[in-house]
Every structure is written in structure tokens, then in C-alpha cells.
């Protein structure tokens, strides 16, 4: 009955399922940030879970499950993005419904403003801001997930921050400007 235990094996199906369950909240958060809308994000996560289940034999037990799942999700996101150009445009009416209106944040940026601003960024910058800023993954893990070099991750994060700051500091967001120095340049659509 007992399997011999080779070095690199797929997870037992039951364990795989448990890992899948445990990661749902993070996947939903990542997808919500990417897509901007709850329904689209949740659809995307379910598709990613279905794909992951179908491909579970290719996941090696003990490797980074989160990175593996996030990679499946973001690959699916980009595939869908290419198929559906509508996803790239930010719809303020949809944005209204994205986030449940919480209590006004006294101590920082409005989450809804940030969500709206994120949707205006190039997808690669949005993605890296979410992975590192929201999920707290390392440069290395982000590079694995996005399939690019760490230097690319760093520059996308830096550019994303500048662009996001510029968007948030724009006319819609009134708060004390950071003081000295010129404002960050307007969003430049470089990948």
C-alpha cells in the first residue's frame, strides 16, 4: 500500500487539495488587485484552481506552492487580458462596486483610490506592486512568479511606485503633498 518515497514527487491529492484551500484567500486578494473587480477576480481564481488541480502532477511536493499557484493565476490573467481588451480600461462605475465602502481611513491613502490608480498602471507594474507591496513576497519569489530577472522586478516596482504616487497625488487626491521637490512625472506607459 505504501508508496516508495522518491526524492521529488507530486503531492498526495488530499494534501494538494488542502494546500489549495489554504491559499484561496491570498489568491483572491492578488486577483482582486489585478482585475479590479470582484467577480472577474473570483472567476479567475476558480479557473486557476481548476488548472492547478489538472496540473497537480507537475507540482513537486516541498517546492513553493504559493509561487506555483500565483504563477498559474497570473499566466491565466495575462492570457485573458490579451483576449479581452476591455479589461485594461478602468471603469469608474465598476470601480464604485469594487470595494465595500469601509470607514474612512484617517491615517493614510484611501484604499479605493489606490485600487483605482492600480488599474491605470501597466499590468506588469500593477502585478509587482501587488506581489511585493500587498503580499510581501521577496524579489526572488516575485521573479520566479513573473518569470523574469530580479533586476526587472526591481525596476518595475520602482516605476510602479512613481506612477502610482503620481496618480494618487493627482487632482482627485487632496492631501498634503510631500513637500519639497518636483512632483513625480506623469504616468509614462513604459512596460
Amino acid at each position, binding site marked *: 500500500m505504501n508508496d516508495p518515497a522518491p526524492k521529488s514527487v507530486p503531492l498526495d491529492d488530499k494534501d494538494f487539495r488542502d494546500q489549495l484551500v489554504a491559499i484561496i484567500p491570498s489568491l483572491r*486578494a492578488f486577483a*482582486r488587485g489585478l482585475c479590479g473587480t470582484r467577480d472577474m477576480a473570483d472567476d479567475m481564481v476558480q479557473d486557476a484552481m481548476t488548472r492547478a488541480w489538472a496540473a497537480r502532477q507537475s507540482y513537486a511536493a516541498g517546492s513553493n506552492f504559493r509561487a506555483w499557484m500565483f504563477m498559474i493565476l497570473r499566466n491565466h490573467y495575462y492570457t485573458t487580458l490579451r483576449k479581452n481588451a476591455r479589461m485594461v480600461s478602468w471603469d469608474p462605475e465598476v470601480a464604485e462596486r469594487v470595494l465595500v465602502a469601509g470607514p474612512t481611513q484617517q491615517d493614510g491613502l484611501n484604499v479605493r483610490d*489606490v485600487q483605482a490608480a492600480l488599474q491605470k498602471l501597466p499590468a506588469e507594474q500593477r502585478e509587482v506592486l*501587488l506581489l511585493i507591496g500587498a503580499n510581501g513576497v521577496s524579489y526572488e519569489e516575485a521573479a520566479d512568479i513573473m518569470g523574469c530577472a530580479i*533586476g526587472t522586478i526591481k525596476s518595475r516596482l520602482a*516605476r510602479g511606485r512613481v506612477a502610482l504616487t503620481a496618480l494618487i497625488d493627482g487632482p482627485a487626491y487632496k492631501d498634503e503633498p510631500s513637500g519639497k521637490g518636483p512632483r513625480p512625472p506623469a504616468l509614462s506607459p513604459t512596460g
Partner: protein
Amino acid sequence: MHLQETITMPEEKTPERGLKSVREATIAGDDPIGKALRRLHDDVVAEPIPDEFLRLLGEIERKLNGAVPSE
């Protein structure tokens, strides 16, 4: 804020001594952008998992239970 100078430096040559890396700046507790991004994340994570996910997992569960052991 030191942010501007941090992010205009070429990464490959940034010694990162003293100066915060962009990642460190972003995940720092007092960074407004980082805080907003984390709140975005935490708000979703705090939501109950919607039913359709449970249905999907139910399907997987059924496959698990119905599966003939491969040995």
C-alpha cells in the same frame, strides 16, 4: 521622503547600504502606498470564502473520494 533618490538609482549598482531598497520602502510600516496595498490585500483575505469556491472544492472532493487508487 528618500523615495525619489532610491528609485532613480540603477539597481545593479545600488549598494543598498543605508539607503532603503524600494522593496523595503514599500513594505515599511509607515509607507502610505505600502499600507494601502496591504489593506487592499487584508480586506479581501478577511472576506468569507464565497460559495462558488466551496462548490469547486466539493467537485474536487468528489473526484478524490471517487478515485480508484492507482496502485
